[in-house]
């Protein structure tokens, strides 16, 4: 059984009386345990709606979303699903609920009614996992963007999820913060947590094990980063290539052999090989 399974999922937003916006259309795909999926597409392509469908914040208008076989449409499953699917949102300031870092991390486990001593342990290990142990007693307002997002990830980790969804969690960060967050996420993925990273940053997409591109609410491309970057549909999806891939393509137009690279190091390797 796949960990995440969507079959023929559609979702309509009610806009005003009788009018609705079809944000997601007839979407079917599945994700296995431990995958690192980058979800890309233009603004308005349905990525964020899809994210909210994955943990029952939205329930499909038609079709089914199942997490570990649990149907998100069944209200009895809601909290079990949210426990398993943690979500980190774009704006760190709109998801921290407490003023002090450790109180914020404890919020999820407290809601689940976990026993006090175990909350303390979970908070400690979650903060450790994101490298924020030293800030446990700090005021969240004074942290940098990257630190705030790491605290948000810790808040999700304290609920011991099996899947983490990042909904443009790095969009508002500077390069340093972005790197901090992505390093943490990669580590968590190595420990077996499934990651779904919604992003506009194509370098981030290159580092996923699988890239899914949405276009106008439909699945447009789905494959390994190198396949996606080679796809003719990329332009239509409003996506650009990561700089190193676009340089590789340029070089192959100017005398180099075709390069199959997805990132900087691959590019350097390939250039060295061909110039030797």
């Amino acid at each position, binding site marked *: 059984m796949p960990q995440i399974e969507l079959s023929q999922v559609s979702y309509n937003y009610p806009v005003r009386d009788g009018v609705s916006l079809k944000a997601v259309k007839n979407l079917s795909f599945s994700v296995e345990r431990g995958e690192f999926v980058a979800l890309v*597409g*233009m*603004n*308005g392509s349905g990525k964020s709606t899809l994210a909210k469908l994955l943990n029952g914040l939205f329930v499909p208008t038609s079709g089914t979303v199942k997490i570990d076989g649990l149907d998100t449409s069944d209200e009895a499953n809601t909290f079990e699903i949210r426990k398993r699917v943690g979500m980190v949102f774009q704006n760190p300031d709109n998801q921290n609920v407490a003023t002090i870092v450790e109180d914020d991390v404890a919020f999820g486990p407290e809601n689940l009614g976990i026993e006090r001593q175990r909350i303390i342990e979970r908070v400690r290990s979650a903060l450790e996992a994101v490298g924020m142990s030293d800030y446990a007693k700090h005021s969240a307002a004074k942290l*940098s*963007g990257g630190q705030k997002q790491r605290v948000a990830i810790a808040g999700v980790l304290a609920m011991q999820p099996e899947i983490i969804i990042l909904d443009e969690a790095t*969009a*508002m960060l*500077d*390069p*340093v*913060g972005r790197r901090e967050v992505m390093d943490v996420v990669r580590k968590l993925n190595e420990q077996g947590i499934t990651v779904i990273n919604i992003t*506009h940053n*194509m370098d981030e997409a290159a580092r996923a094990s699988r890239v899914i591109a949405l276009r106008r609410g439909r699945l447009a491309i789905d494959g390994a980063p190198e396949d996606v970057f080679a796809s003719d549909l990329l332009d239509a999806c*409003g*996506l*650009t290539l990561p*700089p*190193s891939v*676009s*340089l590789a393509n*340029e*070089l192959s137009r*100017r*005398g*180099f052999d075709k390069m199959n690279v997805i990132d*900087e*190091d691959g*590019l*350097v390797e390939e*250039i*060295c090989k*061909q*110039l030797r």
Partner: protein
Amino acid sequence: MQAIEIKNLSFIYSKGTPFEQKALDDINLSVAEGELVGVVGATGSGKSTLIQHLNGLIRVQDKKRASIVVDGMDTSSKKTLRKLRFTVGMVFQYPEYQLFADTVEKDVAFGPKNMKLGAEEINARVRRALDVVGLDYDTFATRSPFDLSGGEKRRVAIAGVIAMQPRILVLDEPVAGLDPAGRAEILDLIGKLKREVSPTVIIVSHSMDDMAQIADRIVALSHGKIVADGSPREVFGKRELVEAAGLELPTATRVADKLIARGVPVKPDVITMAELADELARLKGAKEADNV
């Protein structure tokens, strides 16, 4: 005449409290009319504080020592404050969050109205501003700014600033949060704004790739001090400085460094992908010629 002349500028937040924090430390900077200056620096390096001084949103703290003259106006002078605000157009981060009127037209007209221009002139400016940012007047003027897409909202917000026809345009992270297509559009737009509306442009950005591409000059800040100031090639040539300031190198420079470390003789001073491609094509051509 210099467009901007900053002398000995320091700034301390919460002065005289335990939270005292030095944001700017003896900044000296002059910008000539017609320059496109990229201001770079890690978060908290003082970039925002610096640019907010340019139109008097933040006042010079130590007037005895420091001074800022913009387009001939002393920013500390109350008399010219309003004129200063219209001389320096300021596009803040996520400018779409400042939209407030019920139509695009009214929102863009807000600045010119505050300038107390005549109705005809206001209308002409609104039309021109929308045209420059690539939004059709007849299609967009009567629409609500809140019904537009993210990229369109941002362009309306930018139009709202350039409708004042500022001589100096300051943009703080103008492409933040946009999708790749939106980023490219706004970056193209900046060149156009400089040619057609505001001859002097200052951009605050975290993207060294973008800066290498479009800036004439880069000013790097670290802990409130200017640590590097020069052409992108000069600044990115000072690798240790860039690193110490908590900044990245442009992708092309980084790749070139890695290639050099591996023995590929590319020039060390490439800063854009186009240059790097030229370099590599040249090397490839030379190698092919050798082989023949």
